[in-house]
């Protein structure tokens, strides 16, 4: 191969690498947008639920019949003499548990957009996503356990969501390890001319 041809052969490789990076950055933007929408919906849903519980608590003078109907339809109507503090704690715990993976997902997107995908920062973000998903499982279960003491209709169950979250957490840890290994390989490759 002539030197000129060799130089030419290097160019498409560089262009491909650049295209790959751009593609990953686009996906990173998608992840960030998805996380933002999720955060918005989670906080919105939480506020709605908090408002409904507040209405049925009798603290306000507003008519609580519609709130009661809505909560009953969702099987979330608390017992007549429910402990507001316990329910608030459960709600807060549920919000924190739900928000943790969303925040980590957004930070992962940010790291993927800012740096190369084979980077220790990205690996750390994946690890944190795994931790957050586990925290979501444990925190969410604890919140449901507490809420169940105040909401007679509430049924505790370990459904497909539990398994899905556990699988996602395991995958996040595996991907983190793969990124770490890839980073080591990329580092070694950089030492080759």
């Amino acid at each position, binding site marked *: *191969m*002539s*030197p*000129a041809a*060799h*130089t030419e*052969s*290097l160019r498409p490789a560089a262009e491909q690498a650049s295209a790959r990076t751009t593609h990953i950055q686009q996906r990173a933007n998608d992840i960030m947008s998805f996380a933002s929408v999720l955060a918005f919906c989670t906080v919105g849903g939480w506020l709605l639920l908090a408002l409904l519980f507040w209405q049925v608590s009798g603290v306000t003078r507003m008519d609580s019949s519609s709130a009661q109907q809505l909560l009953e339809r969702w099987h979330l109507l608390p017992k007549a003499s429910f402990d507001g503090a316990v329910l608030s704690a459960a709600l807060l715990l549920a919000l924190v548990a739900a928000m943790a993976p969303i925040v980590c997902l957004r930070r992962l997107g940010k790291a993927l957009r800012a740096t190369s995908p084979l980077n220790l920062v990205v690996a750390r973000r994946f690890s944190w996503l795994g931790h957050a998903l586990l925290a979501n499982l444990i925190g969410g279960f604890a919140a449901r356990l507490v809420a169940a003491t105040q909401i007679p209709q509430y049924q505790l169950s370990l459904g497909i969501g539990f398994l899905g979250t556990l699988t996602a957490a395991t995958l996040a840890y595996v991907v983190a390890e793969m990124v770490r290994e890839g980073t080591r390989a990329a580092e*070694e490759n950089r*030492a*080759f*001319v």
Partner: protein
Amino acid sequence: MPIIIELDVMLARRKMKSKDLAAAVGITEANLSLLKQGKVKGVRFDTLDAICTVLDCQPGDLLRHVAGERGDRP
């Protein structure tokens, strides 16, 4: 390092500048400088092929093994 890079010698023989070789081979001057100093872990066959083509030489003209140069090897 028991492998000595003799790229400088070859460049002097061919009366060629590092800058021109780097441009012809398609690597950066910084990487070529590291290669000349032997501060790289390895050389890709593609790069070696391009250097040999440009300098019209054999890999053996560029690399030399010196036994016992590194203490950690028998």
